[in-house]
C-alpha cells in the first residue's frame, strides 16, 4: 500500500467523480469497519481508506492533491475488453423488458505476462475432524507432501489443521526444513468436530501476514463436514478477505458438507468451490486447484458498478472460467482470470421503464479493477465499463450474437436447476420435480445421458422422501456446472 495513491486505495481511476468516490468509500467501509473487524490488521487498512476519502471527498483538498500527484504512469492495459448485447437496441415499451449483456475479457497474447508463472502465497486449511479418518485424510496427507516438494522458491506456503480448534502445522516461510515439514504432515491425526471458522481464521492470518501484490494470495479449505453456529463469522471473514484481495476456495469431500454455505463464502472472495464425490479424486482435485492458481493471471477481478434509474441487475453469471452464479451486488467479485483463456460474464438486466424523450439509455456503468501479481511488481489496471443502448420503436430483427446464444444454452440449464432448488425450499415438490424433468430432457438432448439419469433418479428420490438426497443434489449442481466447462462445450 506504500506507494498507492488515494485513488488506488479506493480502486478508482483518477477522473473519478464525486459520486463514484462516495460510493467506493461506502462499500469499503461497510466491509472493513473496525467495530465489526475479526482481524486486527484491517483497522490500519480502514484508516488508509478513511484518509483517502477525507482528501478526495473535499473538492478543494482534492484539487490540491491532484496538483501534487505525479503524472499517471503510462501503462497500456494488456486486456482486451469486449461487450456483447442480446439486442442491438432497447425497445420503447410500456412494460418492463430484459436485456442480456456479456462482458468478455482476455489478455493480449504477446504481453510478457503470458509466459511467467504467478508466485503463490497460499494456506492449505485441512479439516481433521473424525469423519476425515482413513482414506480421505491419508490422501490429503500424501497430496500435501507432494505440494511441499513441488513448491517454487518464490512461493509461500502454510498448512493449518483444524477440528474444534485450529493448529498451525507448517508456518509460512519456514520451508527450509522440508524433512521436518513432511514429518509433521505424516503425523496428522483425525478426531473431533468441524469448526470451519477456526481453520479459516488461522489460514487467513498466515496469508495476510505475507500478503503481497507480487503473489496470488489464497486460502484453500479442504473439508468433508458441516460447521455449526460460526457461519456468520465465516461470512464476515470472507468479506474482509475479499476487501484485502485474499481469495478463499473450498474443496468439499463426500456428500455431508454444506455446499450452499461454502459456495456463498467462496463466491464472496472470487474463489471457487469444488465437489469431490469420491476419495479417489481428492489428490487430483487438490493438485488441480494449486495448478489453477499458479496459472492464473490474477484471482482478483472486481467491478464496481452502478445501475441507472429503473434498471435492476437481476442475475450475474460467470460462464467462463468455472461457471458459477455471482452475487449481483457492487463490487462484483468476478474471480480469477486464467493466463491463457477468457473470462466471460453474463449480466441479466431488467429495464423497468424508459422515459419518453430518451434516445439513448445507459444501463449500467462500472469500474473494472484487476490486480495482476508479478515476480517483480504487481500492477493494477483500472478500466471504465459502460453498458448502453439506443432506443428504437421496433424490436430489431437481428439474431443475438453467437456468444450470447451459446451463453443462453448454459444459462438456461443453470436457471432450471436453480428453479427446482427454489421450489424445493418452498416445499412445492410437484413444481420442483417438473423443473427437474425439464432439465433432464434438455440434458439428454445434449447427449448428457448420465447426468440426465442422475437428475431422474433424484426426481424419484424426491417423490419418495420429499427432499433432495445430499449426494444427488451436489451431483446435479456441480455436474451441470462442469458440463458447461469450455473443455466440454468445445469452446477455447
Amino acid at each position, binding site marked *: 500500500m506504500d506507494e498507492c495513491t488515494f485513488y488506488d486505495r479506493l480502486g478508482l481511476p483518477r477522473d473519478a467523480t464525486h459520486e463514484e468516490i462516495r460510493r467506493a468509500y461506502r462499500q469499503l467501509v461497510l466491509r472493513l469497519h473496525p467495530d465489526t473487524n475479526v482481524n486486527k490488521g484491517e483497522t490500519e487498512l480502514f484508516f488508509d481508506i478513511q484518509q483517502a476519502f477525507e482528501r478526495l471527498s473535499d473538492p478543494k483538498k482534492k484539487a490540491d492533491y491532484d496538483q501534487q500527484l505525479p503524472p499517471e504512469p503510462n501503462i497500456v492495459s494488456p486486456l482486451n475488453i469486449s461487450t456483447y448485447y442480446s439486442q442491438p437496441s432497447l425497445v420503447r415499451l410500456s412494460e418492463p423488458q430484459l436485456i442480456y449483456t456479456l462482458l468478455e475479457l482476455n489478455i493480449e497474447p504477446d504481453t510478457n505476462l503470458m509466459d511467467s508463472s504467478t508466485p503463490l502465497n497460499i494456506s492449505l486449511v485441512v479439516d481433521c475432524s473424525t469423519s476425515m479418518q482413513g482414506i480421505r485424510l491419508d490422501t490429503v496427507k500424501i497430496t500435501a507432501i507432494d505440494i511441499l516438494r513441488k513448491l517454487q522458491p518464490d512461493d509461500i506456503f502454510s498448512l493449518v489443521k483444524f477440528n474444534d480448534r485450529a493448529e498451525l502445522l507448517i508456518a509460512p516461510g519456514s520451508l527450509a526444513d522440508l524433512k521436518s515439514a513432511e514429518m509433521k504432515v505424516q503425523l496428522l491425526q483425525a478426531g473431533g468436530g468441524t469448526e470451519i471458522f477456526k481453520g479459516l481464521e488461522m489460514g487467513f492470518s498466515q496469508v495476510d501476514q505475507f500478503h503481497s501484490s507480487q503473489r496470488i494470495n489464497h486460502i484453500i479449505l479442504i473439508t468433508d463436514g458441516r460447521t455449526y453456529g460460526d457461519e456468520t463469522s465465516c461470512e464476515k471473514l470472507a468479506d474482509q478477505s475479499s476487501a484485502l484481495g485474499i481469495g478463499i476456495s473450498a474443496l468439499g469431500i463426500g456428500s455431508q458438507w454444506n455446499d450452499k454455505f461454502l459456495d456463498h463464502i467462496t463466491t464472496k472472495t472470487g474463489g471457487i468451490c469444488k465437489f469431490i464425490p469420491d476419495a479417489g479424486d481428492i489428490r487430483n482435485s487438490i493438485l488441480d486447484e494449486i495448478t489453477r492458481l499458479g496459472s492464473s493471471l490474477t484471482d482478483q477481478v472486481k467491478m464496481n458498478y452502478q445501475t441507472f434509474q429503473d434498471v435492476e441487475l437481476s442475475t450475474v453469471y460467470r460462464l467462463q472460467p468455472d461457471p458459477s452464479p455471482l452475487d449481483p451486488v457492487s463490487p462484483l467479485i468476478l474471480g480469477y482470470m486464467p493466463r491463457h483463456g477468457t473470462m466471460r460474464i453474463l449480466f441479466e438486466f431488467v429495464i423497468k421503464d424508459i422515459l419518453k424523450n430518451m434516445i439513448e439509455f445507459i444501463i449500467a456503468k462500472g469500474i473494472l479493477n484487476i490486480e495482476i501479481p508479478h515476480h517483480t511488481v504487481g500492477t493494477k489496471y483500472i478500466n471504465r465499463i459502460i453498458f448502453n443502448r439506443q432506443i428504437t420503436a421496433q424490436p430489431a430483427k437481428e439474431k443475438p450474437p453467437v456468444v450470447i446464444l451459446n451463453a*443462453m444454452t448454459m444459462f438456461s440449464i443453470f436457471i432450471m436447476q436453480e428453479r427446482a432448488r427454489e421450489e424445493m425450499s418452498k416445499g412445492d415438490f410437484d413444481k420442483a420435480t417438473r423443473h427437474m424433468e425439464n432439465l433432464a430432457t434438455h440434458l439428454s438432448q445434449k447427449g448428457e*445421458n448420465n447426468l440426465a439419469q442422475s437428475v431422474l433418479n433424484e426426481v424419484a428420490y424426491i417423490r419418495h422422501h420429499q427432499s433432495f438426497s445430499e449426494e444427488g443434489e451436489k451431483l446435479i449442481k456441480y455436474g451441470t456446472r462442469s458440463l458447461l466447462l469450455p473443455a466440454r462445450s468445445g469452446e477455447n
Partner: protein
Amino acid sequence: MIFCPNCGHQELPGALFCKECGTQFTILSRDPTLTIPNNLADHLHEEISEDADSVVPPTPNDASLSLFLVESGEVISLEGLSEYTLGRSAEDQPILPDIDLAPYRAYEYGVSRLHASIKVSQPYALLIDFGSANGTELNGQKLTPNKPYPITHGDIFSLGKMKIQLLVNR
C-alpha cells in the same frame, strides 16, 4: 409480455429462453428468413411453416387426438396429457416416452428414444422434433429440430421411417 410457445409461461420482452421449461425463444420469435437454410427442402419448409399459421384450422378444445400407425394399422389414442413425448423405451435408459413406440418395431424404423412431442395447445396441436438422429418429417417436409410446427387432422408425419397419421376426433 411474451408467452413461451412450449409451456405458455410468461416472460418479459427480450427474454431469450423460458425460465419455466428452458425452451429457447430465439429461433421461434425472430423472422425465420434470417435462419440460413441448409438445402432447398429446409428453405421450402420455412415458407410452409409461415403460411401454416393462417391455413391450419384451430383444434377444438374438446377434440381428442389419436395416432394412426400407417404400417401396422394400430391406433393409439392420446388422453389425459397436454403434451405427449414420442419415442421408444430402451432397457439401459431411464427415460420413458409418454407414447412408447417400441412394441411397433420403432427401433427398426429408426425412431429415437426421445424423438418428438405432440403438444395439445390452442389453437393448434404442435409437433416438435427433439433433434432426433433420423429426423421428423411432416407431410414430406423435414422439421427443424426444437421448433414447433402446427399439425392437424390427416397430417402424416414420420419419425425416422415410421409413418404416423394424426387423427382429430370431433
